[in-house]
C-alpha cells in the first residue's frame, strides 16, 4: 500500500463507534461474582420451575470443573469471573404493553435505529428488545399470535409454555457442551423464544436486538427457535454496546431445531463495541450457536456479518441428521485495529444425502487477526453427503493477519467434499481505478470490500443487507490502505 493509502486506512480505523452512548436508567443488579446463590437468585427472580433451577445448578457444577478453551487464535488477559455482575435489569417491572416501556429505553432503541413503537417500526419486522439481562419489549405479538407463532422473551416462555421449553432447551447445545455454554446455562437471564407450529410460514421477519448497557455486567442470553414440520422462519439478531474502557463479557447460546421440511434462516449483524484503536475496551464475544436439522429435508442457514467485539469466538454449526437436510453458513468477519476474530462453522453430516455450503469472507485491517476455523465431518452413515467450502481472505495493509484452519473428517467414501481458499490484498490498481473515477479512497475500499462480501450479503434480508454494507464501510474507517 502506498503511504497515502496507509494513512487513510488509519484515519478510517480511528472512526468513532456510533452506538457508544450509555443509557442513564435505574438498574437492579445482583451482587458481583458467581455462586450457587447467584444462580438460585436468578432463577427465583424469574419465577422458574424447579426443573430449570436444577438444570442451571448442574450446568454451574459442570462449569466449575471446566477450563476456558485455549485452542482458538485469540489472546486476552484472564477473565475474572468473580468481578462480573451476572444480572442487571432496569429496575421498573417488565411492562405489560409497549405504552408502559420506560421512555429512556424507547429513546435508546430509537437512537439505535430500532423504533419499538409498532407504527414507526420497520415494516414486516417484529422485534424483541433485550436490554442487559432482560427483554424490555416485544413488538407485533398479536399479529404473530394470530398465525400461531410464539415470539416472546424466553423467561416468559418458561412460564407460559414450559412443556416446549423443557422439551427443547439444551437439546441442541447441552448444558455442559463447552465452557461458555455451561456458564450461559447456569446464569442465562433472557433471550428470545420462537415457536413456529406445523405448516406455518412466519408472516414477518423476527428480530432480536441485544443491547449491553450496564458496566461490568456479563450478558448471557439464550435463544431457542423451533420450527415444526413444514414451518419456516427468518430471524435476525443485532447487537451493540456502549464504549467502555474495560472489557465486557458476552456469552450467548442459540439453539435451533428444524423438523421435517422446516426451514430456519438465522442472520446476525454483530456490532458489539470493538474497543478503541489501541485495543482498549470492547466486548469479549464467546458464543455457541448450533442448529439441529432433525427432520427430513430440513434446512438451517446461518448468515453472519461480524464487525464488532474485541474478541469473537463463534462457530454457528449445523447437525445434519435428517435425510436430505441442508446446512448453510455464510459469513463476513471484519477485523480492524486490535480486534481478534476466530470464527467459522461445523457441519456434521449424519443423515443420507445431506449437503452443506460454507462461504466465509474474512477481512483484516489494522493490527487485527482474523481466523476462519471450520469442521466438515461426514459420519459413516452419511452416504451421498456433499460439502462445498469457500474461504476467502482479504488483507488491508500489512500489519494484520488472516488464517484459515479447515478440518475435514470424511468417513464415507461416497461423500464429496470440496474446499477452495484464497487470500488477496486490495490491489493498488483497484484503488487507483476507483479513485480515477472520482471515488475517495475510503469509498473505494468500501466498494471493493462490499464486492468481496457480495456472496454473503445477498443472503441477508434486504433491509439488513443495506445496513450491513454501511456497517462494513464504517468499520473500516481509519483502515484504508
Amino acid at each position, binding site marked *: 500500500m*502506498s*503511504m*497515502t*493509502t496507509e494513512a487513510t486506512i488509519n484515519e478510517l480505523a480511528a472512526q468513532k463507534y456510533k452506538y457508544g452512548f450509555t443509557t442513564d436508567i435505574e438498574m437492579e443488579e445482583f451482587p458481583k461474582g458467581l455462586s450457587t446463590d447467584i444462580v438460585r437468585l436468578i432463577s427465583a427472580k424469574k419465577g422458574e420451575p424447579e426443573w430449570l433451577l436444577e438444570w442451571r445448578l448442574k450446568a454451574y457444577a459442570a462449569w466449575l470443573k471446566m477450563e476456558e478453551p485455549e485452542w482458538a487464535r485469540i489472546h486476552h488477559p484472564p477473565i475474572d469471573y468473580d468481578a462480573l455482575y451476572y444480572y442487571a435489569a432496569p429496575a421498573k417491572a417488565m411492562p405489560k404493553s409497549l405504552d408502559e416501556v420506560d421512555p429512556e429505553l424507547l429513546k435508546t432503541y430509537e437512537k439505535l435505529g430500532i423504533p419499538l413503537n409498532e407504527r414507526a417500526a420497520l415494516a414486516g419486522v417484529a422485534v424483541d428488545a433485550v436490554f442487559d439481562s432482560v427483554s424490555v419489549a416485544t413488538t407485533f405479538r398479536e399479529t404473530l399470535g394470530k398465525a400461531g407463532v410464539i415470539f416472546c422473551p424466553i423467561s416468559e416462555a418458561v412460564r407460559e409454555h414450559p412443556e416446549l421449553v423443557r422439551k427443547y432447551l439444551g437439546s441442541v447445545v447441552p448444558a455442559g457442551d463447552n465452557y461458555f455454554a455451561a456458564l450461559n446455562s447456569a446464569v442465562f437471564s433472557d433471550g428470545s423464544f420462537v415457536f413456529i407450529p406445523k405448516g406455518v410460514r412466519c408472516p414477518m421477519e423476527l428480530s432480536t436486538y441485544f443491547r449491553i448497557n450496564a458496566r461490568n455486567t456479563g450478558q448471557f442470553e439464550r435463544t431457542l427457535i423451533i420450527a415444526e414440520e413444514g414451518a419456516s422462519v427468518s430471524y435476525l439478531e443485532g447487537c451493540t454496546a456502549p464504549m467502555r474502557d474495560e472489557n465486557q463479557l458476552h456469552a450467548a447460546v442459540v439453539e435451533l431445531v428444524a423438523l421435517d421440511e422446516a426451514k430456519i434462516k438465522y442472520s446476525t449483524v454483530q456490532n458489539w463495541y470493538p474497543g478503541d484503536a489501541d485495543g482498549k475496551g470492547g466486548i469479549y464475544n464467546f458464543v455457541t450457536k448450533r442448529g439441529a436439522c432433525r427432520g427430513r429435508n430440513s434446512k438451517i442457514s446461518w448468515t453472519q456479518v461480524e464487525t464488532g467485539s474485541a474478541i469473537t469466538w463463534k462457530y454457528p454449526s449445523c447437525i445434519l441428521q435428517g435425510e436430505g437436510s441442508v446446512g448453510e453458513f455464510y459469513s463476513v468477519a471484519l477485523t480492524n485495529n486490535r480486534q481478534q476474530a476466530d470464527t467459522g462453522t461445523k457441519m456434521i453430516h449424519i443423515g443420507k444425502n445431506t449437503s452443506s455450503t460454507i462461504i466465509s469472507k474474512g477481512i483484516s485491517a489494522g493490527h487485527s487477526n482474523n481466523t476462519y476455523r471450520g469442521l466438515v465431518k461426514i459420519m459413516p452413515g452419511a452416504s451421498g453427503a456433499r460439502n462445498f467450502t469457500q474461504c476467502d481472505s482479504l488483507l488491508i495493509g500489512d500489519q494484520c493477519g488472516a488464517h484459515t484452519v479447515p478440518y475435514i473428517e470424511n468417513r464415507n467414501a461416497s461423500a464429496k467434499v470440496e474446499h477452495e481458499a484464497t487470500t488477496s490484498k486490495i*490491489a*493498488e*490498481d*483497484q484503488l*487507483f*481505478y*476507483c*479513485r*480515477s*473515477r*472520482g*471515488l*475517495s*479512497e475510503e*469509498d473505494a475500499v468500501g*466498494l*471493493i470490500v*462490499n*464486492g*468481496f*462480501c*457480495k*456472496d454473503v450479503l445477498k443472503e441477508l434480508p434486504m433491509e439488513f443487507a443495506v445496513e450491513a454494507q454501511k456497517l462494513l464501510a464504517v468499520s473500516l474507517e481509519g483502515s484504508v490502505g
Partner: protein
Amino acid sequence: MLEIKNLHARIGDAEILKGVTLTIPDGEIHAIMGPNGAGKSTLSYVLSGRDGYEVTEGEVLFNGENILEMEPEDRAAAGMFLAFQYPVELPGVGNANFLRTSLNAIRRKRGEEELDAVAFLKLARGAVKQLAMKEDFLKRNVNVGFSGGEKKRNEMLQMAILKPHLAILDETDSGLDIDALKIVAEGVNTLRDEKFSALVITHYQRLLDYIVPDMVHVLAGGKIVRSGPASLAQELEASGYAGLEAA
C-alpha cells in the same frame, strides 16, 4: 486547456519522462504515438495522479490549475478521465453500481445534485445502447470475465456517462476489431465540442482515421521527439519509429 511543461517523472530510480512539453487547447484532440516502453502510459498515470510516480521537475496545468498536487478523485471531479490501457477488475462490484457511485461522487464534489436510481438507469441504458452493448453489461461485475474488447468498451461507457472535459485514451484501440474501433471513435466524436479535449495514445494510425486529431506527437525515450498534423500518423505508419529516438 491542458498544459504540460517540461515534465520529468520517475518510477523508483528510473527516470521515465525526461521533459515532456505539450499543450492541448480546448476543443482539440491530440494523438500520442510512440514505441513500446516510450513512457506513454506513464504520462497518462502521472496526469491522472497514480501513486508511485514521482514528478521531479516541471508542471501540469489543467484549465490554469496546477493538478499535480491534486488527488486522483479531485482530478476526476475537475473533469479528467483516463481510459485505462488495462482496465481493472472489481469482483462483486456491479457495473451499474460502480458507474452510479462514480458519477454521484463527481457530482457531489462539484456541488451538483446526485442522480437517483431511476434517472441514472435511463442515462446508463441510453449509453449502453449507443455503444452497441448488451444491456446485461450493466449487471455484470466491473470488467470481471470481460473480453479484451468488452473491457475497452466499458471504459467508453464510463466516459460517455462521466462526460469529461479532458479524456486520455491509453491504447483503447488495441485488440479491437474494426466495428469496435468505430464505436470507440464515435464515443469520442460525440463528446467533441469547443470545451472538450482529448489525448489519444495509440500505436496504430488506424484509429486516427476515425478520430481525426488536430495534432500528432511522437513520444520516444521519455520526450516528445516530433509533432505534426494528422498526416504525421500516416508517415509514421509507413516508416516506423526507427531513428526517432535519436532525434
